[in-house]
């Protein structure tokens, strides 16, 4: 179905459009912010490679989204998948989509930034060992096979949305989609060679805090823009994006104090992410009071998984599963309990007498992890038949910055000799092929 939206619905609102232009830019900024956050969490020899995985996601997922991903997610209301009517952005014009008051083109760009950050999130599972080329190919295929499909189910008129499942800003495609895909990616790519043998510590906690802060800032566009307007839902989601992470932070401080008698900085950065993820699906569906409860209570399962995961053999390196998968899962279910018709004008949850909403939410919380995990697992297994997914042990030891990019994050320049174009001697060139 590629027909333009019905003319009667097509009324552009300048206020809504102004806000959505800003919100789109805010969400795009989240991906470099994630790069900074992730780069601080790895060892210094992998700083650039880790950051570049996020930059690579902007490049590849952005292009693939415009070519085919957007169409599969948002063309028509097929139950499982959209159509190809918007292939290459044909018919995506200034005329608003049905039910929105912003140009269709802007709607597409806003959704593109979601696809980009979700693909970038998955990199957290495979940093410090996955080769850059195969990662880019993975992003291209994954953004279509996993993200577009989940986005269609929850946002684009697919079976979850039409069945009544509520997901305001992407608990299904973005958070659970990335979290459970990350688990599969970590299992297929395998653990780092020194994992479980040496302490592999974050090399710059300030990057981590600054990255988390910028992510939170961008998240106001992410959640606040997911109403596609300046109306009440956007305001509620915006304010909840302030309240929920604040409560997660307080809870994280308490848990840190109980566990180690000290409040940790990297724990705080993690709590900010967890809080933002928790409120992502529930944004405009729950009252500010319940959003605060969600922030505090939802931090508990995420904290538990973050403490438990490093004791396993699964090197899901930057805990995407805990911070996004588990938090997204919790937020989606929380809607089923505490959604409030008085606040959202859509539906009540179990707590307010509507048990069926919990059923709709539980269905999404069950199916999404299975789909994301299975598809990502199969995709990487098949890719692994054609190309090695990870660097050799020796390359991993030297560090991915030099091996994959021929640069260092912290090059001193001492002893560096300029190479003139005509000079050629026997030299060691980074081979990232």
């Amino acid at each position: 179905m590629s027909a333009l939206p019905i003319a009667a619905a097509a009324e552009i609102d300048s206020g809504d459009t102004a806000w959505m232009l800003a919100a789109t830019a805010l969400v795009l900024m989240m991906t470099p912010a994630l790069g900074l956050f992730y780069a601080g969490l790895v060892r210094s020899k992998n700083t650039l490679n880790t950051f570049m995985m996020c930059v690579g996601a902007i490049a590849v997922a952005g292009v693939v989204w415009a070519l085919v991903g957007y169409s599969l997610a948002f063309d028509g209301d097929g139950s499982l998948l959209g159509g190809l009517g918007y292939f290459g952005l044909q018919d995506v014009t200034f005329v608003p989509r049905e039910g929105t008051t912003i140009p269709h083109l802007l709607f597409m760009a806003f959704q593109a930034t979601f696809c980009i950050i979700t693909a970038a999130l998955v990199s957290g599972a495979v940093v410090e060992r996955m080769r850059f080329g195969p990662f880019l190919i993975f992003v291209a295929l994954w953004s279509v096979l996993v993200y577009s499909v989940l986005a269609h189910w929850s946002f684009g008129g697919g079976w979850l949305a039409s069945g009544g499942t509520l997901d305001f800003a992407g608990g299904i495609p973005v958070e659970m989609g990335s979290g459970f895909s990350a688990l599969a990616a970590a299992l297929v790519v395998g653990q780092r060679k020194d994992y479980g043998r040496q302490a592999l510590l974050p090399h710059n906690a300030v990057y981590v805090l600054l990255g988390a802060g910028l992510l939170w800032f961008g998240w106001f566009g992410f959640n606040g823009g997911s109403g596609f307007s300046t109306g009440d839902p956007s305001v509620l989601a915006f304010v909840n994006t302030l309240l929920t992470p604040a409560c997660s932070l307080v809870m994280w401080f308490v848990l840190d104090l109980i566990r180690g008698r000290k409040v940790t900085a990297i724990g705080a950065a993690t709590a900010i992410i967890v809080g933002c993820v928790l409120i992502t699906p529930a944004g405009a569906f729950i009252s500010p009071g319940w959003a605060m409860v969600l922030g505090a209570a939802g931090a508990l399962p995420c904290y538990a998984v973050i403490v438990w995961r490093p004791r396993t053999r699964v090197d899901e390196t930057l805990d995407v599963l805990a911070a996004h998968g588990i938090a997204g899962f919790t937020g989606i279910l929380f809607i089923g309990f505490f959604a409030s018709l008085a606040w959202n004008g859509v539906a009540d949850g179990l707590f307010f007498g509507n048990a069926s909403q919990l059923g709709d939410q539980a269905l999404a919380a069950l199916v999404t992890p299975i789909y994301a995990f299975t598809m990502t697992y199969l995709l990487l297994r098949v890719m692994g038949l054609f190309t090695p997914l990870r660097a050799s042990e020796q390359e991993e030891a030297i560090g991915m910055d030099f091996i994959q990019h021929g640069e260092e994050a912290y090059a001193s320049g001492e002893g560096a000799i300029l190479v003139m174009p005509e000079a050629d001697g026997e030299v060691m060139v980074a081979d990232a092929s």
Partner: protein
Amino acid sequence: MKLVIGIVRPEKANDVLEALYRAEVRGVSLSRVEGHGGELERVETYRGTTVKMGLSDKVRFEVAVSDEFVEPTIEALCDGARTGEVGDGKIFVLPLERAVRIRTGESDQAAVTPVGANR
């Protein structure tokens, strides 16, 4: 009494520490150094500027040991640091004139024997 200096690849430093620990060599100092020893130079490119990195990062171990520990220390350094490629590093063994443990004033043999060591 000898001072054993081992200059190794930074990525092998942890393996060396493990090997030294297994050989029951306890007192170790290490520092990050830059140097050049005939290995192939790395080429890096920053925008339009291509450079040969003439100096490589290395880690320098300094271990002061009694005579009976000289061989185990050298073996541990070799085992931990060897990859077989050019650039694995060097070991230098120097005679040590005197050693003093600051805390107790003990000198020489007693000073280089770790607290609680069997030998």
